[in-house]
């Protein structure tokens, strides 16, 4: 059996591909792109929420938000490591983010204007992310699948804490309820866009499905999210900002209005409300951290030299 046949047999029998296995270049490239962009999304995703750590309304909320942002950092690191098993260098991957060559989830280019947004981000953005990530636990590339199992397990509190913020605000004063509604208004559509373009305009989807990287299409996942989330909004006493939204008794699914894909394309190509600020913040963090990285290397060199001279003295 030649290498390609063996690879295809593995995929056909739903076996995992591991780093040392032969794989087609296009499979490797697709995974590098997807996993690195996923990692970047976790790291850039820390920024909109990080903005509210110092302004959280209570010590409890602050501790929770810190724990969540810490988790996102960890998830970025799991994913960068998984990406490195495909033969890329961490520093190059990060350079691609900073140069704009690599993309990240467009949702993080929207601002968090007030505390209700932190609730909406946890509830909707993490909810959508979980919907995307759960099937990835079964994707065909072993290191990615294993990283996803860990991420999903840790992520399970993220959505709950967001929903709880929304519950508190929706059940609070008139003003608080308005803030919750306003946050839902602003985050609803961008959250639906997180699942990516519609199936008939998603050129890479078919190949990713054939390789068992993707298990469901963009539209399938978006539908699942809508079906699960609309009743949650009702429970909160909030209105989903879609006049065309209706329940279809026959299909057992909600039908939604038209998504503004021109907005999606605009934001993903760099022209969203915060694209520039997000990348500048990441670059600045990298540059400001240069002395720490240099000091760590100098320290390890000093320790190694010291050990070498002790060994010589002992011998």
């Amino acid at each position: 059996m030649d290498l390609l046949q063996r690879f295809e047999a593995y995929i056909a029998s739903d076996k995992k591909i591991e780093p040392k296995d032969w794989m087609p270049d296009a499979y490797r490239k697709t995974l590098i792109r997807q996993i690195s962009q996923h990692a970047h999304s976790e790291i850039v995703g820390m920024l909109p929420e990080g903005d509210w750590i110092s302004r959280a309304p209570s010590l409890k909320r602050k501790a929770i938000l810190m724990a969540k942002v810490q988790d996102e950092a960890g998830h970025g690191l799991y994913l960068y490591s998984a990406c490195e098993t495909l033969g890329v260098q961490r520093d190059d991957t990060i350079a691609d983010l900073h140069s704009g060559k690599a993309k990240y989830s467009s949702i993080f280019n929207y601002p968090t204007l007030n505390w209700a947004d932190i609730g909406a981000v946890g509830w909707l953005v993490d909810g959508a992310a979980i919907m995307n990530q759960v099937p990835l636990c079964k994707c065909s590339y072993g290191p990615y699948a294993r990283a996803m199992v860990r991420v999903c397990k840790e992520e399970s509190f993220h959505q709950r804490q967001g929903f709880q913020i929304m519950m508190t605000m929706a059940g609070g004063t008139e003003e608080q309820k308005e803030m919750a509604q306003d946050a839902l208004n602003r985050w609803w559509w961008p959250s639906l866009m997180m699942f990516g373009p519609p199936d008939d305009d998603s050129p890479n989807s078919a190949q990713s499905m054939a390789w068992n990287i993707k298990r469901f299409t963009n539209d399938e996942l978006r539908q699942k999210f809508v079906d699960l989330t609309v009743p949650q909004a009702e429970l909160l006493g909030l209105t989903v900002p879609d006049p065309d939204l209706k329940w279809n008794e026959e299909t057992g699914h909600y039908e939604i209005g038209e998504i503004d894909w021109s907005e999606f394309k605009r934001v993903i190509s760099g022209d969203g409300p915060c694209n520039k600020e997000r990348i500048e913040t990441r670059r600045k963090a990298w540059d400001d951290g240069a002395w720490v990285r240099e000091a760590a290397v100098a320290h390890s060199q000093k320790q190694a030299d010291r050990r070498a001279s002790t060994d010589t003295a002992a011998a």
Partner: protein
Amino acid sequence: MEKKNWPLWEIFIRSRQGLSHRHVGSLHAADAEMAVENARDVYTRRQEGASIWVVPASAITASSPDEKSVLFDPADDKVYRHPTFYDLPDEIKHM
């Protein structure tokens, strides 16, 4: 030249594709290739393995048991990292 003590190798076995390599034990061998061959014989006689990693034991830095509380106690009072910390209405089945 006879080398008295061969280096110690820590052995990690992947039991099947899709699972991570797990530490199973250690053995002595003159070099990495011999360690792989010996690990095959010592640890995978009953089809336990799909892949072997050998790592020089001297390359492993371990935390000290004395550091246990310093390292791990801080997680004890962070119950909010667990989903069960958040009460949800009964209507919400999956979250």
